[in-house]
């Protein structure tokens, strides 16, 4: 780059970078606000905060993207950015699939438990079958130990 061209170019880049910084800060602010209103659990917000901070750092730290892309052997820095962004989105989607699978499993266990409890409740109410609930005490202990409790 010749110095003569660099001066107007630099001004344009700086203003562009400012815009990007503003966008990144906005993303972080929205995430923060969603957490504050309890619309988003911290557990799932962390990934989005990482995204916002990454954009912020890349926008503020001039040359980081360029040196990173050269370090991994990508000639065109925006391509490196796209590659990283794409991987991030893939990871996020995979994460959601895992969460969804776990939720389905937990939801199934809850539904089964509701049906079992309802049956016991209705059997207890029916006249002549009041003895149906007598097997209850040892069972509850059993289920709590055998059903998997999954937490992250």
């Amino acid at each position, binding site marked *: 780059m010749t110095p003569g061209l660099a001066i107007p170019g630099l001004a344009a880049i700086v203003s562009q970078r400012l815009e990007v910084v503003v966008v990144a800060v906005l993303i972080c602010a929205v995430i923060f606000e969603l957490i504050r209103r309890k619309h988003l659990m911290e557990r799932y917000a962390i990934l989005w905060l990482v995204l916002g901070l990454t954009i912020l750092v890349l926008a503020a730290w001039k040359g980081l993207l360029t040196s990173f892309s050269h370090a991994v052997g990508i000639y065109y820095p925006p391509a490196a950015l796209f590659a990283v962004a794409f991987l991030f989105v893939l990871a996020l989607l995979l994460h959601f699939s895992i969460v969804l699978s776990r939720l389905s499993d937990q939801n199934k266990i809850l539904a089964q438990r509701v*049906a079992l409890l309802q049956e016991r409740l209705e059997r207890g109410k029916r006249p002549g079958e009041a003895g149906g609930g007598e097997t209850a005490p040892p*069972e509850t202990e059993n289920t709590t130990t*055998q059903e998997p409790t999954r937490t992250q």
Partner: protein
Amino acid sequence: MNRNLAIVPAYNEAEAVGATIAAIHRWAPEFDVLVIDDGSVDDTAGVAAAAGARVLRMPYNLGIGGGMQAGYVYARENGYEIAVQVDGDGQHDPSQIKDLLACLREHPELNMVTGSRFLDETDADGYRSSAARRVGIRIFARVLSTITGQRVTDPTSGFRMTDRKGIELFATDYPMDYPEVEAIMLMHTHRLRSCEIPVTMEPRLTGSSAIAAPQSVYYMVKVLLAVFVALFRKRPVRDAGPAVEQT
């Protein structure tokens, strides 16, 4: 209270489930009947209760696997020693429950007995199904026979009886949808033993199969994937309880 439980999955089977329950009461009086009403929109639960069955009313349509597992949890928690699955649509003949029971009694080393439509060669035409479906069944049968090292002819049969170990295993871990084939893998993984005996099945009286034609490709792929993945589960994912031997 009986020590044996007949688990009857029923989804919108108000027309057929009453006859099934009556037949179980008649042919297998030593079995309590538990109907799994898997989120039916008709009066399946009411008909079943009126026919003298216990009813588990799933809060929404969980699918056959989730419903069946609820039945096994019920069996485990109420101390049943034997559980048999009998479809609510009249496909399975309750008069053959005694054959399954006799087989299990004769061979205490077995944990599960499955009624097979295809074991009795002379009666091969007794049960008709579409060609595509038969091909699918044959593929599963071949795969499972190879993996388990014993002859499996009807891996999709839901007419099955398990002992207490089987009940405990299925109460803890049971495949969510299209469970029959995977359940055989599950038994194999947990080193429980099973066998087949010949049965005859009726064409279904009412309702439609859980496996509709457009989903059959998904069904094949999903089950084959599950079986493949199960090969790499050397040890039980979840402990099926102290009754299961582990090596």
